[in-house]
């Protein structure tokens, strides 16, 4: 049991921190601009694909740097020539624009790289096991993922709390209308944040690609989960996004490990339920099977009962 808990904790942490890398950019964009960027996970996918192409020629490591930069520039261009243009039609139009963009990116990815999973592999340098415990090994690459994610979190925290740019962004997150009055170039700040947010998503793609598979469907799998993270974490709260990322990561990893069902629960209460009855699906379902639903249940419940999210100060 202990080994299951330890490995689940580690895997949950890896997954959670990966989510955070996506969520941090998205929450910055959402808080400042009020745009829930549907294409954020697609940008993550672009990061993985571009890094894959780079790795074909010069190996994994240059891709780690170049791909996020390319993707970041792409994000900045999207903001400058797409989102800014649509802004005048209101938030719903912006939301629909990013939705269309997500659709378009997926189609372009299929056009360029094909419909199948591409063989984006982790670097051989990290192809060893970091440590062994209870006979299971923890791959070094996952350790590397942890390291990068933590570095990004710390870096973001330092930038946002210690630097001048960070102060402006902080002000913009909590009081989006005030920044313009302080004389800052708001469009430039928006473009910058969108670019950096995209670059972070791209970086997440670069390091997740080899583990979660680099395929055209990878954005659709992760996109809605990242939305859950930022809504649950709360608008304008980076700490909230962090906590929610870890929470969702753990939730999904641990859920797999639990085979408990209502049938057993009722069994403990001394109730005998027919495991083959017409409604039996409702109580024979195990927590493991419910894993994929849980984040969305959380999302709906949060939006109904606490629209500010766990750590947020403003409503969505």
């Amino acid at each position, binding site marked *: 049991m202990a080994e299951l808990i330890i490995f689940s904790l580690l895997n949950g942490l890896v997954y959670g921190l990966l989510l955070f890398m996506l969520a941090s950019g998205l929450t910055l964009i959402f808080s400042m601009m009020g745009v829930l960027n549907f294409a954020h996970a697609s940008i993550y996918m672009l990061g993985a694909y571009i890094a894959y192409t780079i790795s074909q020629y010069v190996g994994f490591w240059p891709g780690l740097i170049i791909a996020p930069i390319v993707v970041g520039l792409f994000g900045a261009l999207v903001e400058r020539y797409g989102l800014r243009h649509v802004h005048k039609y209101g938030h719903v139009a912006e939301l629909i624009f990013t939705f269309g963009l997500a659709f378009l990116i997926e189609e372009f990815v299929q056009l360029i790289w094909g419909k199948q999973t591409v063989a984006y592999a982790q670097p051989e340098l990290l192809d060893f096991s970091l440590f062994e415990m209870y006979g299971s090994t923890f791959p070094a690459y996952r350790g590397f993922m942890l390291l990068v994610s933590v570095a990004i979190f710390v870096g973001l925290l330092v930038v946002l709390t210690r630097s001048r740019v960070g102060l402006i962004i902080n002000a913009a997150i909590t009081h989006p209308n005030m920044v313009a009055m302080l004389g800052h170039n708001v469009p430039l700040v928006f473009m910058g944040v969108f670019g950096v947010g995209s670059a972070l998503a791209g970086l997440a793609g670069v390091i997740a690609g080899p583990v979660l598979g680099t395929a055209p469907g990878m954005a659709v799998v992760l996109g809605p989960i990242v939305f859950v993270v930022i809504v649950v974490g709360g608008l304008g709260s980076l700490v909230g996004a962090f906590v929610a990322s870890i929470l969702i990561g753990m939730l999904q990893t641990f859920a797999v490990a639990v085979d408990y069902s209502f049938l057993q629960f009722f069994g403990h209460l001394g109730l005998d339920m027919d495991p083959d009855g017409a409604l039996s699906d409702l109580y024979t379902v195990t927590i493991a099977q419910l894993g994929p639903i849980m984040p969305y249940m959380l*999302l709906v419940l949060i939006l109904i009962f606490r629209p500010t999210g766990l750590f947020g100060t403003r409503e969505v």
Partner: protein
Amino acid sequence: MSNMSETAGVARKASFLSRYAIWLVPAIIVAIMPPVLDSNVAMAVLNQMGIAVIFTVAYNMMLGQGGMLSFGFAVYFGLGGYFAIHGVNIISEGGWPIPLPFVPFLGGLAGLAFGALFGSFSTNRAGTVFAMISLGLGEMMASSSLIFSKFSGGEEGITTDRTEVPPFFGVEFTTEQEIYYLIAGWVFFAVFLMYRFSRTPIGRIANAVRDNPERAEFLGYSQKWVRFMSFSVAGCFAGVAGALFALNYEIVTEETVGALTSGVVLLQAYIGGIGFFAGPIVGAVIFTLLQTLMSNYTEIWALYVGVVFVGTVMYAPAGLTGLIMMHIPVYRVGRMGKLTVPYARIALPALICALGAIGFLELWQHISAGATGESEIHVFFMTLDYTSPIPWIVFIAMFLGGLWDARRVAPAVADTYGNALHYAFTGEDQ
């Protein structure tokens, strides 16, 4: 049919014929389609189109008329489908005397019930909160439909045989034509009811709540209740569309409730134009045609649809119907003629630009699809060799040249339109 510039109605004294022509003419066209086309493929396309029309118009009851952007509307479509298909199975097993054309009522009831259930807690607010709840519910229901497989059949879905139910005046619905008439009948019935709904007090107030929920509250209307009603009714018609889907394909699977279905309906509504009652109809028709016809010629039809969609959002937020409607005042004062030449002037480079882009993308597609051994592809009825640089250069030149010229003349064309519109409203030239 616009609901943006509604007219007084009392002032309008339309004759019976012109009033009902808008329903009659399409009805006649739809009725004579099967013998005219005489093709199963065409029937299949039209059936798909009919279902899309109901679904999209229902969606626009929320988005265009009620101001609610949903990313999970397939839930009601899919549940309508599931209930209908179980209904057909129960009817055929139990030998109930319910013929097939009545089954969509069951789907509608299911859509209504779930619309009311989910609407009861998700319509408190519009905007992003509503959109996110709908997304969450959509994902939840899609995942659930894989888990609760007794009801949904899991990955495989539920199948049925629609010919097992009692015949309807001797019709057993074995052929595409027969199911076509069933769907067509329901399309008219459902679209008429939805149009009628938009003309009722609640339909008008839905517009008011969309525009300004606070003001509506100070007129005595509960914004939540207004949204809730639009939402439930939209769910009902989505359920009808889902039921027709179930009858047409005789299968309902988890994708029917899934995110892609929800996304496509948004695409259809938006391309058609969400500000008009007819917009989603136009959108559904065009999208279905693109999907079915274009996919005969190109693998990357979805990419083109995506480009059209993003282009619509950016440059024509009122959709295709909006583009037509903005010319109506000009047409009324007989100034369309003045626009023909400038429009042709910009259409030419735009067309060249589009053809260049399409040619380029098609070449590219054939490289990445990696057809082994063949270097010849067919684009625009021509046979090209994609290993040669010439087609690439030509297409890129067409794209860039067309784009350059179109952008150059665009301001002048826009001015011409502006002048014509000015004339239409004021009776004088600028």
